[in-house]
């Protein structure tokens, strides 16, 4: 893994990184990925078979609409807000 890969991951992750951070993460990623690579020992053929037999069940409930007590409290926690809306910078250019 090189610094270009880390910068690409940071872009996908919406993270601004300083150059010093890129350098640090580049070194550490190789080590961590080398460790978790152990998972590759698991045969690909095992995948479908085992996931199928996983013992989980769906928990369903009625889809009932109920009113929320204090939506304005939630809106007020947004860094930018106006009236009953969350405020962000312009997204589309004319």
């Amino acid at each position, binding site marked *: 893994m090189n610094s270009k890969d880390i910068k690409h*991951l940071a872009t996908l*992750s*919406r993270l601004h990184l300083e150059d010093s951070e890129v350098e640090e993460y580049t070194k550490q990623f190789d080590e961590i990925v080398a*460790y978790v690579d152990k998972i590759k020992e698991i045969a690909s053929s095992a995948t479908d078979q085992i996931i199928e037999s996983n013992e989980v069940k769906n928990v369903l409930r009625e889809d009932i609409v109920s009113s929320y007590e204090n939506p304005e409290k939630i809106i007020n*926690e947004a860094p930018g807000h106006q009236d009953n809306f*969350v405020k*962000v910078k312009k997204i589309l250019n004319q």
Partner: protein
Amino acid sequence: MTITEHTIESLHAKLISKELSVQEVVDACISQITAKNPELNVFIQLHTDFINSQVSVAQEKINSGTATMLTGIPIALKDNILIQGEKITAASKILEGYTATYDATVIKKLKAHGAILIPRANMDEFAMGASTEFSAYGVTKNPHDTTRVSGGSSGGSIVSVASGMSIAALGSDTGGSVRQPASFCGVVGLKPTYGSVSRNGLIAMASSFDVIGPVTKTVSDSKILFDAIKGIDSLDQTTVEGEISSDVKKIGVPYHFLKSGIDEDVLKVFEENIERLKSLGYEIVDISLPSFEYALSIYYILVPAEVSSNMSRFDGVKFGAKVEGKDMIDDYFKTRGTLLGTEVKRRIMLGTYVLSAGYADEYYRKAWTARTMIKQELKKVFESVDMIAMPVSPCPAFKIGEMASDPLKMYLADIFTVSANVAGVPAISIPGGSVNREQKNLPIGLQLLAPWHGEERLFKVGQKFEIL
């Protein structure tokens, strides 16, 4: 015995007999926090008005004879459990200034008991870490040796109980975050069965691993607190209930898993603990859990994957703090890049990596397969033994700064705790002994694991095992 040395049980007796008032108990905790917090850094912020505002309700419950075991008992809360109207940050700068808009389900339950909530116990940022060194508000120190870490990520909750700032606490355990600091600081930490306690109102780290767990001085206190917070919740569709027999005769030990990478003195304490279990009448059986070798890889693939998804909600738009960029997307980059800490960013990128096109099959999908293998293997082992015993951590509390710059080394310290989260089974850390380092005695915990919904087994064996 001072007020803050009490257990839930013994303090309850004093409150009911009116030997102590709720106000006296609360005052004792607040003065202990005021005295010790500057040194130990347990609470990010102390909101005494909020704490005191709960006193009259609790005292009224006692006076009217409607008290429960938890009425008037001060309970510290990790800074990732929401209390309506209270500040909360999950020890991150990105949530600075945020006020919770609702009560977590566990908070609603504790309020119904008239427990005294003490919010904002320190933690690793968003619970990512094993030492509290990744808190944006500084490290929580180990009360047994302040040059060492408390462990983490629930370090604040643990030290609060260990140093008498509260009588009990709640933490959250995603890969050992309640058990490991409990082991490092000499208290009892329970990671309940996945889904047995509602996660509604717990700031999410890795949703298929996270569970809220009690921190207490004794095993019977652990049961009291667990019984109060467990149960099905319509606001968390992963909550489940179940019951199994509490009988324990055979305890399995995966000796093959303890052959390397463990401190000699820690292993010696573990062996003494096993002898003690034998002397209590349990049969010790050597068991084999070959898939456990994959547990840490599974954990450090699936957890970052879930983290990268859960953390996407922190974007400077919806909650807390924001750093202005030149346009909308730059707001995201600047806010997240500047306000999230090193470990959080590392895990977001790791998760993005293992989920990205071309890698998802090799990492994410295989890790899910291996996770199911571990569950199946445990299910089979639990047909022949009733419980499993293991160490909690391969080492005693380490020095502050010793591992912070070496993430893989820190991850490897989770080797014995992650399996319970990968499988979803309950596990408990109980004080088992101590090792001596630089003329200081450092506590070491014993870890017991039971089958799904087998908490009663942990409490039963734990109560016999613990030395009070």
